[in-house]
């Protein structure tokens, strides 16, 4: 035990000293392909995470496999069952007949641990019902995942975890045959690095003084052909826009005709017809009339209620957000500059010079931001502040909902079922829901009939709702395979659920909202939101 934790610590230090200037160590080499996605910060978060998985089913071990491989810190499998002959046939983390009769949790933990020596794994053979009385046990994990938990235990677990926001998030996974669904029950999830596709503004329309001065100071006409053909498009646009504004009451090109004229003016600045940098400026001309302002989804975060009740123990994210709100409430009412300059046709000197201007300005604005933060009396890790400022245009707050909130309103179900866009998703969800409830009611009859399932569904829907054909199809599927944990479905869910767990743990990328529904006969996935 001791030795394992030491290994983890040494290993973590290795990523901490992730050397960019020399050949990487073994650990960095092992994780190279994922570090290129979530970097050392994401990796450190994974290695600090403790995940509890309830049951060692084929689906559960498939999920865990995809968390152990990338190097999660710790996992516990909670499962009191003994490996049956049925289990041994569909679970890659059991050794066929050799595992039959042994503890399912112990066998799965042993085989999963072989995948990655730096991961700690524990088998817990207690009953979940007993563990439910011990919320400090549950609180020791950062994430809990439950597959095909019986409906009454799931109700108890999900209610308990929801009752206290400091308790870990829960991922609920259901599957039968080719159909499946999962849901992330999470109170609040803040994301600094969402890896958004949105590009930050280059401030063409609101150039900072050094950028404007530089653009205006260049003597385009005096340049030789080579230099003229390598003026970065950013400078061409700033200058062209400045001239335009001078003759248009300080306005940017607004109408289509004006925009065409603006582009013509840029082409008119060419010395030779084949100057690619001016062609780039034309292609990027939209940047001149796209107003640099706080994006609406970031603006929306400024009215988040947490900001009204901010206190020293509030999570750092909200202190940073409050500082950002103050920053953006001052002229020129924009987000701090990001120093990333895209590549463009330019010679080395003019590009590097421009890059330095952006960098210097970004540092200045970051200093302003830090000063605001300081004024409010908050001290935060400069690395975090830097990351926040760099990603200010992609911030996200996810406010989740309680499991089964859908099920409490039959009208909502009715509406979702009747809408063409959500019909098959709702039908699949209802079929799986009916199955899990009926399996509890009659634990001895493993196979609820189609009629029983349909009757259950009809019963939870408003009277006026006529069941569409899709319900019959999905009910037919679950009635055919009520207790089948198919290896391919397990592997598919194993990938999807682990992917979402990684997003929740690293706080990078954006986890799914609503119920994610999977149909592996139609080969589609869909989202169901109330």
């Amino acid at each position: 035990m001791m030795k394992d934790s030491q290994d983890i610590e040494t290993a973590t230090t290795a990523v901490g000293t992730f050397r960019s200037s020399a050949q990487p160590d073994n650990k960095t080499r092992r994780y190279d392909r994922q570090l290129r996605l979530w970097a050392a910060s994401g990796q450190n978060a994974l290695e600090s995470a403790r995940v509890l998985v309830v049951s060692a089913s084929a689906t559960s071990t498939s999920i865990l496999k995809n968390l152990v491989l990338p190097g999660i810190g710790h996992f516990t499998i909670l499962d009191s069952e003994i490996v049956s002959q049925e289990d041994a046939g569909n679970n890659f983390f059991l050794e066929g007949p050799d595992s039959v009769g042994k503890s399912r949790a112990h066998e799965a933990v042993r085989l999963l641990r072989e995948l990655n020596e730096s991961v700690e794994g524990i088998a817990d053979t207690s009953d979940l019902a007993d563990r439910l009385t011990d919320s400090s046990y549950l609180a020791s994990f950062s994430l809990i995942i439950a597959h095909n938990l019986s409906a009454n235990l799931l109700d108890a677990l999900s209610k308990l975890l929801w009752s206290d926001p400091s308790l870990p998030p829960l991922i609920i996974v259901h599957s039968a045959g080719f159909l499946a669904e999962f849901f992330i029950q999470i109170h609040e999830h803040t994301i600094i690095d969402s890896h958004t596709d949105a590009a930050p503004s280059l401030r063409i329309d609101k150039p900072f003084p050094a950028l404007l001065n530089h653009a205006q100071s260049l003597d385009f006409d005096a340049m030789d052909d080579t230099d003229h053909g390598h003026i970065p498009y950013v400078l061409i646009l700033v200058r062209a826009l400045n001239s335009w504004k001078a003759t248009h009451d300080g306005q940017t090109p607004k109408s289509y005709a004006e925009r065409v004229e603006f582009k013509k003016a840029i082409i008119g600045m060419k010395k030779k017809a084949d100057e690619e940098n001016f062609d780039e400026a034309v292609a990027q001309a939209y940047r001149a009339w796209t107003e640099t302002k706080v994006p609406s989804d970031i603006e929306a975060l400024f009215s988040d209620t947490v900001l009204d009740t901010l206190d020293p123990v509030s999570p750092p994210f909200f202190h940073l957000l409050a500082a950002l709100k103050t920053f953006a409430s001052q002229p020129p009412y924009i987000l701090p500059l990001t120093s990333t300059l895209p590549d463009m046709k330019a010679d080395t000197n003019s590009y590097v010079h421009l890059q330095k201007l952006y960098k210097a300005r970004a540092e200045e604005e970051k200093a302003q931001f830090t000063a605001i933060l300081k004024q409010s009396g908050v001290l935060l890790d400069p690395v975090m502040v830097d990351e926040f400022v760099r990603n200010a245009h992609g911030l996200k707050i996810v406010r989740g909902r309680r499991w089964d909130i859908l099920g409490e309103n039959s009208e909502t179900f009715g509406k979702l079922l009747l809408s063409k866009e959500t019909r098959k998703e709702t039908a699949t969800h209802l079929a799986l829901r009916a199955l899990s409830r009926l399996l509890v009611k009659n634990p001895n009859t493993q196979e609820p009939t189609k009629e029983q399932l349909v009757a259950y569904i009809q019963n939870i829907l408003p009277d006026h709702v006529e069941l569409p054909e899709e319900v019959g199809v999905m009910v037919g599927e679950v009635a055919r395979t009520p207790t089948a944990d198919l290896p391919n479905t397990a592997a598919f869910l194993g990938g999807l659920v682990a992917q979402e767990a990684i997003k929740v743990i690293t706080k990078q990328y954006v986890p799914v909202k609503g119920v994610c529904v999977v149909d592996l006969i139609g080969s589609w996935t869909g989202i169901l939101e109330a």
Partner: protein
Amino acid sequence: MNENEQTRFIDWPGRYYHIDQVLNKPGPRTDENFNAGDAVKDFLRNQCKILVIGAGGLGCEILADLALTGFKDIHVIDMDTIDISNLNRQFLFRQKDVGKSKAIVAAEFVMKRVPGVKVTPYFGKIQDKDESYYMQFHIIICGLDSVEARRWINATLVNMVDEENPESLKPLIDGGTEGFRGQARVILPTVTSCYECSLDLLSKPTAFPICTIANTPRLPEHCIEWASVLEWPHTQGDKKMDTDDPEHIGWLYDTALARAKEFEIEGVTWSLTQGVVKNIIPAIASTNAIIAASCCNEAFKIATSSSSYLDNYFMYIGTDGVYSYTFKHEQREDCPVCGGRSVLFEVDKEWTVNDLIDALLERPDIQVKKPSLAAIRKDGSTVNMYLQGPKSLEEATRPNLEKKVSDFVGDGEGIIVTATSLPLSLDLVIKYI
């Protein structure tokens, strides 16, 4: 013990409890040809022969999934050996396996873990095998990272289709991933859209112009390309660069770093150097699991007819929530591999044969690297315009590169384009503009 007894011994009671729920009876979306019960189980477990191409990120997952679903005669081809950077996702390999054949280690692991499954590895290239080899399989699944290899197997399987012999049509299931994205597709050669039909869906690889690399570097990538493309051949002569050799990467890194310092460019790192020269694509276990499971699930449904299968493209993006898109990619009538129709190709009257070759290289829907050209005249006669090989013919036709296209074909006449690396031939109909 005869083979049947052996199978009975291995198939312990309850082994297929989960799978058999699907195989014992039809569901609402089951094909009418479904032969529920013993017949379908016998085919799946005792007769069906399946080939997996690639034993890497997708391949490891595919082998495990197939074995668990009951395929018992699995073959796998891979020419690679195991590297430490594979271990974050290729879960059949351990540290001690580094340097060994992926196909062999993967096959041994699956046979040990799933009793009674026979996995036959081949440590080599898919091009080593001919049609008679591919003909023995019922289904072929590809988990490859190379576009060229996919094009080769796709074209080979399309060419194998013989209308007289239904057995010659081999379903090809192809998976691919990149970071949080991936796709799985089912190709029925000549019947559905093939891999070549969708070449234009591929994103263009980033290429840096030589003049930027040589004269106006701006990004760290430009410095790295300078080191590998220009400085290596310049200073190392004929020595072949091995991007798996840390010393070579080290040299490239030092060289790129020195250039970056000279130009005040920031950001050259070891990791970036390796990423650029090896064209590294980020890869994680979870995405591979999703795509491999899709592929195997389609293989299972096709092999058993137990449910309808994918027609024909599944795309997944996991960066922002769970997004997927299932659609039917249409067959291209002018596909150089499976389409019957020729491509109308516009040619400038002044173009030389060399210009035509350059134009062909530019086309995203064609993408031939080293095309050979032969003119087909209206009277049916053919003339070699330019041949990449053999050497004597290359030399004989080389002077033609400078001649005008119009010296060989008139308006409305044809040119056949063939490629040395791919079993395809493309018919162009020339239109002068």
